[in-house]
């Protein structure tokens, strides 16, 4: 199995007025192609910081992070942007759609930054909207659809550039149970197509959709293994 993520001794501290505060205290983790990993832990456990580093949105203070075979420490901001664009699809808790753009344009946005022609952008965006069952709303705007639908659009946007990895930060945090389950079924279907998924959640029900569970506590990794065993 190919490695998508390899983290070695990730250490991260934040400068505060009261001195440096460590948030990650040396994390080692490998995630292979096609895995579906749930990340859990209480607030302040370091899981969000860890996700930000995985998404190349933040840098570790020390330690090595290799994404899809590339050591991100050696990349400049533009190359990091390119890596995010080509390898990662992000799904956020707050959906983070652009309010002034149509759903079609929202989904097509990652393609704008890798110079895909307009006609192809639109056709691929519509393919993705069809995949999440929202092709009827291509010309609508985010404020015209429900939260669950917005999250589906966000997933369509994460998928449009055919990423290897989807990073989802509490994707169901703002959704009701029924909608959450629909979204999780969608993730599971995507995982079955071979896309690697790393998902942060608070809820055991949501984590149960994953195949592997990692747990954070006080900046350390305290559990890495089967989802079912954790609940046992």
């Amino acid at each position, binding site marked *: 199995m190919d490695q998508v993520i390899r983290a070695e001794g990730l250490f991260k501290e934040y400068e505060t007025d009261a001195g440096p505060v460590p948030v990650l205290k040396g994390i080692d983790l490998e995630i292979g192609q096609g895995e579906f990993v749930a990340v859990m832990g209480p607030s302040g456990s370091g899981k969000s910081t860890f996700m*930000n580093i995985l*998404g190349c*949105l*933040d840098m570790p203070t020390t330690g090595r992070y290799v994404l899809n075979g590339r050591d991100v420490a050696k990349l400049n*901001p*533009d190359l990091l*942007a*390119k890596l*995010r*664009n*080509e390898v990662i699809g*992000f799904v*956020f808790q707050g959906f*983070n759609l*652009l309010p*002034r*753009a149509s759903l079609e*344009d929202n989904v097509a*946005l*990652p393609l*704008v*930054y*890798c*110079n895909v022609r*307009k006609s192809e952008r639109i056709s691929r965006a519509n393919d993705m909207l069809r995949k999440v069952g929202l092709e009827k709303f291509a010309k609508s705007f985010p404020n015209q659809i429900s939260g669950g639908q917005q999250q589906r659009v966000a997933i369509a*946007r994460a998928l449009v*550039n055919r990423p290897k990895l989807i990073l989802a930060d509490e994707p169901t945090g703002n959704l009701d149970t029924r909608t959450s389950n629909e979204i999780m079924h969608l993730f599971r279907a995507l995982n079955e197509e071979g896309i690697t998924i790393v998902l942060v959640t608070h809820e055991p029900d949501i984590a149960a959709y994953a195949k592997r569970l990692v747990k954070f506590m006080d900046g350390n990794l305290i559990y890495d293994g089967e989802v079912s065993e954790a609940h046992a």
Partner: protein
Amino acid sequence: MTGQMLVEAWRAMEANRLRTFLTMLGMVIGVGAVVLMLAIGQGAQYSVEQSIASMGSNLFIILSGSSTSGGLRMGSGATPTLTVADAQAISELPEISAVAPAVPGIAQVVYGSNNWSTSVYGTTPAFLAVRNWTIARGVPFTDSDVRSATRVAILGQTVVENLFGNDDPVNKTIRINQSPYLVVGVLGAKGQSLDGRDQDDTILIPVTTAQRKLFGTQFQGSVRFIMAQASSAAAMPLAEKQMTALLRQRHHIQAGRDDDFSIRNLTALANTAAQATQAMSMMLGAIASISLLVGGIGIMNIMLVSVTERTREIGIRMAIGARRRDILMQFLLEAVIISIAGCTIGVFFGVGGAYAVNRFAQLTVVVTGVSILMAFMVAAGVGVFFGFYPARKAARLKPIDALRYQ
């Protein structure tokens, strides 16, 4: 990519219509003021240049010297030392292309029941060439008229209007100080001189006629001044030296004694006037540019607000693959669009204002393509200059900070 950026810039501007409009208004006023002020300044310059051209180019005026009688110094021209023969001699100098002597005076002219007081110049046909004057109707008088001192006259437009109204004056007889003169021609219109005199309020007659018949008692054989035109602007200093030497020789002035004439370079005077209006024109433009600067600062201010407001959006874009230069270009494009759109509207207002000034204030205005092009380039420059700092601020945000921004 660029197309998509234009679409997004438009969306962002449309989302805050009033704000976009007000920001643009700063540019509209700035550019409008620059275009209008340049039009007025260049109009003034144009008027001066026209006056200079109508005076004739590379022009000298040679005046008789002053005289002292009983300790009382008289002004230039008080002693009639210049003659028609002097003018003839000057015209043979190599650097001089045309020479006309002049005997000026004021006379009452009468035609039918109309009468008019005007200035009458006794001169030669060369006067027309020297003063750059055309004949609108009829013909000029000739050298043979000068030789035989015939009573013929060429009338300026103002004189024609006052004596003849709409009638054709050519071949009519007018009376100048009671004597009959045949009108042979009419001068083309020239308008005002630099000092505001009506140059068309004049009559030209042969110099000999003026000396012997009209102002005979005042100027026996002498002329009040001589106008001479140099062959080129570059030849003027040399021409002045040659004329001085020639006249000193003809007037038997010994070395060390003062000239009994004075030579004035009219073109130099005119150039001074032209420089003064040019300075005024530049000053107007400079003052107007300040409003353009203020407009630019307005753009910068709003772009900074916009960057702060859209920090989260910037974060989203960076997360899904926007590079720094993509973000930079997006905000820069917005600033440039606002400034160029404002500029376009401003040009319309500026040109409209210029026509209004022309119509209601009777000022000459000149709107040139160059000034409009300049306004556009400055506006685009202002957009880039004042848009750059906010755009760079946006582009330099860290993705994680931008995403977390609430």
